[in-house]
C-alpha cells in the first residue's frame, strides 16, 4: 500500500498537471453536490431591468438576455451535466464490460454476435447516431443519457474483450479454475477486478466525451429545455449575442464546459500513469 502511495506521489510530482486536474475534479464534484446552495442568485429569476449586463461585482459572469445571473446558472448547471454524463458512462460501463468480458471469455457465437453489434454502432458517425436515437426515442433528458450510453458502449466492449483475452490463459485464472470455481465466479471475482484499473481510465476519459456529447445535443435543441440551466443550452442562448459583442453570455458556460472536459481528460491520462507506467506517453 505504501508503495502505491509512493508511486502516486511520484506521478503527481512528475506531472503536476494531474494534481491540478484532480483539484478541478473535486471542484466539479463540489459544484455538482452543493451548486444550488452556493449559487448567489436564483438561476431562474429574471430581471429584465438588468438584462445583458457585462461582468461586474454584483454579477461576476454578467447577466443574460432575461437578466438571469450567469454565474449562478453555470454553478447550478454542473449538477445536471455531471448527472447526465455519469449516468451515461455508468450505463455503458455496466453493459459494455459485461458484454466485453463475455465476448472475450466465451468466444464463438457470443463474440460474433457482440462484435456485429459493436460494428453496427461504429458504422455510424457517433454524434449523428446519438441525434437519431434521441429523435426516435423522444426528446427528453433521459434519452440523451441513453443515446450517449449507446455511442460509448462499443469502446467498453472492445476494451473489456481485449483485456479479458489477454488474461484468459493467465496463471491466476488457471488456479481459480483448478480451485473449482465456475465461469461466473471466475469472471466476477477473479477476472473482472483485474481488468478494472484499465477500464477506470477509460471511464475517466469517457466522462469528458459524454459531457461534450450531451452539451452538443442540447446545443442543437435536443434533450434539455430552456429555462433549465445546462452548459450546452446556455452556450446556444449566448450564440446569438456573440455577433453583437455580448461575449459573456456564451463565453462563461462554454469555458466551464471546456475546463470540465479538459479536467476529465487530464485525469484519465494521469490515472493511466498511476495504473500503468508503461503506457506513459
Amino acid at each position, binding site marked *: 500500500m505504501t508503495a502505491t502511495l509512493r508511486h502516486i506521489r511520484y506521478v503527481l510530482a512528475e506531472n503536476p498537471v494531474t494534481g491540478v486536474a484532480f483539484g478541478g475534479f473535486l471542484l466539479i464534484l463540489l459544484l455538482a453536490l452543493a451548486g444550488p446552495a452556493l449559487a448567489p442568485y436564483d438561476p431562474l429569476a429574471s430581471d429584465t431591468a438588468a438584462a445583458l449586463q457585462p461582468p461586474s461585482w454584483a454579477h461576476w459572469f454578467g447577466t443574460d438576455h432575461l437578466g438571469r445571473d450567469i454565474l449562478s446558472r453555470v454553478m447550478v448547471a454542473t449538477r445536471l451535466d455531471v448527472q447526465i454524463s455519469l449516468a451515461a458512462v455508468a450505463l455503458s460501463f455496466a453493459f459494455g464490460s459485461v458484454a466485453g468480458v463475455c465476448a472475450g471469455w466465451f468466444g464463438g457465437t457470443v463474440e460474433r454476435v457482440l462484435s*456485429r453489434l459493436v*460494428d*453496427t454502432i*461504429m*458504422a*455510424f*458517425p*457517433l*454524434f*449523428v*447516431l*446519438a*441525434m*437519431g*436515437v434521441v*429523435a*426516435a*426515442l*423522444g426528446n427528453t433528458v433521459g434519452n440523451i443519457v441513453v443515446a450517449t450510453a449507446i455511442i460509448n458502449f462499443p469502446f467498453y466492449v472492445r476494451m473489456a474483450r481485449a483485456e479479458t483475452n489477454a488474461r484468459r490463459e493467465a496463471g491466476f485464472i488457471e488456479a481459480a479454475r483448478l480451485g473449482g470455481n465456475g465461469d461466473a465466479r471466475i469472471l466476477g471475482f477473479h477476472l473482472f477486478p483485474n481488468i478494472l484499473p484499465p477500464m477506470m481510465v477509460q471511464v475517466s476519459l469517457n466522462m*469528458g466525451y459524454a459531457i*461534450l456529447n450531451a*452539451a*452538443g445535443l442540447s*446545443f*442543437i*435543441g*435536443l434533450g434539455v429545455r430552456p429555462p433549465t440551466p445546462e452548459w*450546452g443550452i446556455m*452556450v*446556444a442562448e*449566448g*450564440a446569438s449575442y*456573440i*455577433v*453583437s*459583442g455580448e*461575449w459573456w453570455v*456564451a*463565453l462563461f458556460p*462554454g*469555458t466551464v*464546459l*471546456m475546463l470540465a*472536459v*479538459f479536467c476529465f*481528460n*487530464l485525469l484519465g*491520462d494521469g490515472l493511466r500513469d498511476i495504473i500503468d507506467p508503461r503506457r506513459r*506517453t
Partner: protein
Amino acid sequence: MPRTLRLILRRLLSALPSVAAVVVVTFVLTRALPGDPAAYFAGPAATPQAVEEVRKRLGLDRSLPEQFLSYLGELARGEMGTSLTTGQPVRDDILARLPASLELTLAGLLLAVTVAIPLGVAAATRPGSWIDHSARVVSTAGVSLPVFFTGLLLVYVFYYLLGWAPAPMGRLDLFATTPPTVTGFLLIDSLLAGEGATFRAAAAQLALPALTLGLFSVAPLARMTRASMLGVLSSDFVRTARASGLSRSTVLVTYALRNALLPVVTTLGMVFSFLLGANVLVEKVFSWPGIGSYAIEALVASDYAPVQGFILTMAVMYVGLNLLVDVLYGIIDPRVRIEA
C-alpha cells in the same frame, strides 16, 4: 494492377454488411420504436380518424417486415419521403445541401492534415522540447474543445473584434453572385466561371467554419503522427539509413514519414466519425446551409423523413470514406496488397 483491383473489390464487398446494418438501424430508429409517426405526420390537431388515414397512407398499418421491404424498395428507387417543413422530396433537399456540407468537411480535413502532420513530425523529432510540450497541450486541449464553442470564439474574435471575417451567415454574402452550379462546391464553381470576387467571398465565408473543424481534428491526427513517428524513428532501418549518411530530410520524409503515415491513415477513420458529427454543430453556429442544419431544423419540428434521410446519408458517407481510406491504405502499403 489486377491485384490492386481485386483488393478494391474485396474492400467494397466487406463494406456491404456495414451498409446493410446502417439501413436496418435507420429503419428501426424511425419506425419500430415507441412514438407514433402517423400522429406526427397528421399534426397535433388531427382527429383519430385522420391519424388512421395517415397511418394507412404511410403503410404503417402493415407488419414490420412488410414495411421494411417497402422501405428497401423506396430506397432502391432513391425515395426518402417528403419533408413536411420544406414540402420538397427529402432526396432533392439533401442533394441540394450536400455539396455545402462536403465542401466544409473536406476543407476542415485538409486544414487539419496540413497542420497536424508537420506538427506531429516536429514533436517527434524533438521529444521533450517546447514544441513537443506545446503539441501535447494543443492535442489534449483540442479533444476537450466543444466545437460549437470554438466556433463562437472565432466568430467573436475575427468577426466582432477584428472585423476580418464576414458575418457567420451561410456560404455567400448577399452581394456576391452565385456561380452556375457545376460541382456544387462554391470554391470550384466560381473558379470555373472565372469569378474572382465570388471565389474570395466564398473563401472568406468558409475560412472560419473550416478552421473550427480543422482545430478540432488536428488533435487526434497530431497525436497519432507523433506516436507513430517516435516508433519509426527508433527502428533499425532508420538507424541504418542515418548510418549510411543519407541526408536528414531523406531519412525523415522518405524513410520515416512514409512508414509512420500508415497508422495515421487508420486514425482518419475515427477522425471522420468526429468530423461528420462536429459538422452538424459547426453548421448550426455558422448558419451553413448544409445537411446538418437541415436535420436540426427537421428535428426541432419533429419532421422525421428528413432526419432519417440525413442519418442514412451521413452513415453511407462515413462507410464510403472509410472504404476510401482502406483502399488508400492498400495502395500506400505494399504489404497489405501481398496479404490480400
